[in-house]
């Protein structure tokens, strides 16, 4: 059986800023260590007729890489984020409209997908869109020795045997989305989910604190 290393399970220092862009309806930047994502949300807004859905809003997620044009990797990540957003948002409240989430990669130093998810959630909160629950992303890396590291850096990701990213909801701590690469056992998968659930509590507390801070001046 693999051993869990206590030193590997840390979340890097993280921070966020909301409403930093003037044009989008909601915007945020989320920083995890050196990884940084800028998110902007437009919506509910007019939708193209071809993309219109008669009973709910159309969610679009765009991930813009820092260098070059978006490729298949970005498309895959977009899909992960979109499906998570669709699960969290109350889309039926805005039929025949569009919600667009644009994520700009500012710096990639590992755990990019989880940072994307967190930035998207903060931006959706800033836009004031009604949601079932909040969500957050946690990335776990399993090293060759079987150690589980949360929120890995790019270097740790490269050295790892498997990489698992989960999106968790804030109410039941259920898994909304999972994206994995590499090989791992069932035990390791369950451990990673358990670790992610623990880590998610801190992120949700962070969401709570940031909202509290933001509305502290409103009596």
């Amino acid at each position, binding site marked *: 059986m693999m051993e869990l290393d206590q030193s590997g*399970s840390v979340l890097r220092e993280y921070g966020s800023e909301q409403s930093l862009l003037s044009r989008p309806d909601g915007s945020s930047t989320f920083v995890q260590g050196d990884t940084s994502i*800028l998110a902007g949300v437009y919506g509910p807004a007019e939708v193209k007729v071809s993309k219109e859905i008669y009973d709910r809003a159309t969610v679009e997620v765009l991930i813009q890489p820092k260098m070059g044009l978006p490729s298949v990797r970005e498309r895959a990540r977009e899909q992960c984020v979109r499906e998570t957003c669709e699960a969290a948002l109350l889309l039926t409240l805005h039929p025949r409209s569009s919600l667009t989430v644009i994520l700009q990669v500012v710096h990639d130093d590992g755990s990019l997908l989880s940072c994307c998810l967190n930035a998207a959630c903060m931006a959706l909160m800033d836009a004031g869109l009604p949601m079932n629950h909040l969500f957050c992303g946690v990335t776990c890396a399993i090293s060759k020795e079987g150690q589980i590291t949360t929120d890995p850096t790019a270097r740790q990701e490269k050295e790892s045997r498997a990489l698992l990213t989960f999106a968790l909801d804030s109410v039941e701590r259920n898994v909304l989305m999972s994206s994995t690469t590499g090989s791992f056992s069932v035990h390791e998968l369950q451990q990673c989910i358990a670790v992610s659930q623990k880590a998610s509590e801190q992120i949700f507390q962070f969401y709570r604190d940031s909202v509290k801070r933001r509305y502290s001046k409103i009596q």
Partner: protein
Amino acid sequence: MRDTPLSNCDRLFLLKAIEEKKRLDGRQTYDYRNIKITFGTDYGCCIVELGKTRVLCQVSCELVPPKDSRPTEGIMFFNLELSPMASPAFEPNRQSELLVLLNRQLERCLRNSKCIDTESLCVVSGEKVWQIRVDIHVLNHDGNLMDAASIAAISALSHFRRPDVAIQGRDVTVGSYLLVDPCEREERVKDGLLVIAMNKHQEICSIQSSGGIMLLKDQVLRCSKIASIKVSEITELINKALENDKKIRKEGGKFGFAESMPKERITTLKRDKAPVEMTDVKETANDIVNRTETTTEVASVPSPVLVATGTAQVGEGIVNSWGLDEDEEDEPLTEDRKTDEVMIISDSEEEEVVILNEEAHFTTLLLRMRVYPDARRLTGTSSAFPTVERARP
């Protein structure tokens, strides 16, 4: 999403204000908005904020074979992108008129003016040269994208590898009244635009007038004078930002975007590195696995039963419900005989009740197939559907 048009009242109000030498944000006509340059942890990466306009720039390089016509010159590549984040009117991956205009102007200003010595990018003549790629993403559009983009490009290029870069700045004007650094709304009421690119030695690198306005000689001269002042101010700012970044890097201090996040705002929050508690993780994981394992053991997967050649059955009801008769399974069935016996009494496409007429008794067969004779004809052989053959001589 289409852009919301500017209403006539807004337009008139803006024009009236400009006439009275007043601007929406309280600036004077020749004032620039605040410029903030932030460098990232990577070399050649910066974010430039010009008021609310925000631009991200990243410089990268690659070794490539040079162009045949210029074997000793490196390649400069500019890619300005209007991200849909900047404005709802910007669509992803679409070459809009504005995008082409901005890209072309940036190229003219930075490549064609030879502000970067492309010959110094040559590694082996005719074989390998550096290709410098400048990616500029517009993150928020609040007017004067050209200035923000060029400041970002120059800052990032100087930050990148410090090749031979001469610093340039620019200046933008509006209509019959002259305005410097217009914001987005002011840009909408403009009659025309005059863009002047100047290097730090106050030499003009390019002038572009667009929008079809007629400019008098002294207007152009006055603009270039304003530009020269602004350029020296911006150049100084860029140099200061670069020096600052260099100093912090040398001292081993913290740098990058995370550090430049304003801490005093109520919209920002930062958390320090925090450990994740993992004490009972192993137990929970084992618990879940054990619980699931017991259930999988109960449900054993049955091995498939071969009823006849070409068939297999898995699951409950090992006895064939289709009424297979072992004796007759190999007996070939002719087409005409079958049509005699089979009588289709339902045209339902989902399920069909087929009654096979026999000597003494009727057997009802439920077939999950569209039309039985057709299916048979398609497969051609009788052994493909041995279970429905029940003919007795």
